[in-house]
């Protein structure tokens, strides 16, 4: 089936290139960080249409269901604010932490990382592109949950614009955590398990009002990055939010995001080349 004999081809290309090969052939350019990040982000977003849509609905329904349940227990005030904020950030935890941990775990176990590892793409572009896409998946669900919760518990919607900061920052923190767990877990099932556990923790520690939790558990609550997103959002339901505190909580999210995404990038590099 092969039409062209090798001798004919290499003979024609001939002298000038064979001399060059002795010295070392020029390398093709690397993909630069931002264009590569954009390409990964775009391709991951398109996966939502094919694969992830049902789970995005599940994430939203779960949170709205929890709020309906809690309405029988909570009378309003600080507790209502905590429930709505917790349920909204839970959508972020479900998608960015749980689903991303599963995705990277599956990609690593099946050898799918080879595809990226054999392209001249910066590791950060792969991790940030995927994390960014998963954080974006959470936008509709989180907004719907926050609005539905405000209606259910008669909370003011004046400051809901703060979601524009809460979603990307807690998204970065939780997606970074999810990516790191997925890439570090030695086995795929373990990645799934860790993602699920992380989400369960976000559910229990985020949705239940903090002052009703026993002492040791509330320390665990402080360790969970989603807590700071929950706290920031809860404060903005107050009539006069303390913006300094909100900013501080969001800064914690940002910091955790930077650290966890750095760890995830390191974990990717480690997982890609063995």
């Amino acid at each position: 089936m092969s039409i062209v004999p090798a001798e004919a081809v290499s003979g024609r290309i001939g002298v000038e290139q064979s001399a060059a090969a002795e010295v070392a052939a020029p390398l093709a350019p690397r993909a630069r960080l931002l264009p590569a990040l954009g390409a990964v982000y775009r391709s991951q977003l398109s996966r939502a249409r094919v694969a992830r849509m049902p789970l995005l609905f599940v994430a939203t329904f779960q949170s709205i269901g929890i709020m309906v349940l809690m309405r029988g227990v909570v009378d309003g005030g600080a507790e209502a604010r905590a429930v709505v904020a917790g349920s909204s950030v839970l959508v972020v935890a479900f998608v960015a932490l749980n689903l991303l941990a599963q995705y990277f775990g599956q990609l690593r176990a099946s050898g799918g990382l080879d595809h990226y590892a054999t392209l001249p793409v910066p590791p950060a572009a792969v991790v940030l592109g995927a994390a960014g896409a998963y954080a974006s998946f959470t936008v509709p669900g989180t907004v719907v949950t926050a609005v539905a919760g405000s209606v259910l518990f008669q909370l003011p919607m004046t400051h809901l614009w703060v979601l524009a900061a809460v979603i990307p920052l807690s998204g970065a923190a939780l997606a970074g955590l999810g990516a790191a767990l997925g890439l570090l877990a030695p086995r795929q099932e373990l990645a799934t398990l860790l993602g699920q556990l992380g989400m369960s923790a976000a559910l229990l520690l985020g949705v239940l009002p903090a002052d009703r939790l026993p002492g040791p558990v509330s320390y665990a609550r402080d360790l969970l990055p989603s807590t700071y997103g929950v706290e920031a959002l809860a404060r903005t339901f107050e009539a006069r939010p303390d913006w300094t505190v909100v900013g501080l909580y969001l800064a914690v999210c940002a910091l955790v995001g930077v650290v966890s995404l750095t760890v995830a990038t390191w974990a990717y590099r480690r997982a890609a080349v063995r």
Partner: protein
Amino acid sequence: MSTVCEVRELVKTYPAARGRRGTPGTPEVRATDGISLVVRRGEIFGLLGPNGAGKSTLVRQLTGLMRPDAGSVEVLGHDLVRHPERASRLIGYLGQESTALDELTVALAAETTGRLRGLSVREARAERDAVLEELGLTGLAARPLKKLSGGQRRLACLAATLVGERPVLVLDEPTTGMDPVARRAVWAAVDRRRAENGATVLLVTHNVIEAETVLDRVAVLERGRVIACDTPAGLKERVAGEVRVELVWRERAPLDVPEVTALRGSAQEHGRRWVLRLAPDEARAAVAAVTGGAAFAALDDFTLATPSLEDVYLALGGNATKGLVKA
């Protein structure tokens, strides 16, 4: 003729794994055991061998995915053991897995891969369109890979590999599951790249027929070693003195016929099928014996053929029980 890829004394040992509950431990495995080869510019060079021969490990070492324990890999003058990250800028790699692309459409898989090879949006789209057209995938461009048949998906992955030109292509079983039309598209695309750009192709296969028709040279691997390396014709000359006789009995071999009993010693038996490798005059005598006498009634079919690469593989001491794929 210039050297594109030179591998010297490559060794990779997988450590022994302790058994978990229910699964026994595995002993230490030498996946590549001192492999050396030279691939020249413009060649289609094949790695042939049964599963577990070390083909994929060798390919992973060539593409920078795995560091060898010892040995050197040089591609176009670059030391890939010391600089594994350069492999992606020299080599277009088609692996066996498509999970990273499965949920993308064919068009987006090709375009994204091109972007990640450093192409601009405009270049990536232009090359995407050209490659999809070339491989006959334009009609499937908007379909997600996981909705395609195995062969079509493989072809879409090849399209992604070809977007963003590379001087060396490493293709790990590119035609698995493809129909003849798709196979022809693959080989035409490969031939075009070496005719126009002098591309060099390293092909992993365990398909003997394909190896004979497309490869310029082939290295036969067995348990992590190269047991032979030559052109397919050159390899076949090593067993040129032999003829392959295949006998198929209706139900079972008539062992009461003395001529048949005599042949049994040199036959490989697979149920009612016997395969014999004989010198030409012996083969003639054997055929005369089974077609002439009492044995003929028990004979369903017989063939006489010149040896194939599979016979070479077996004659070289390859493991007969882990045979190669013939179709």
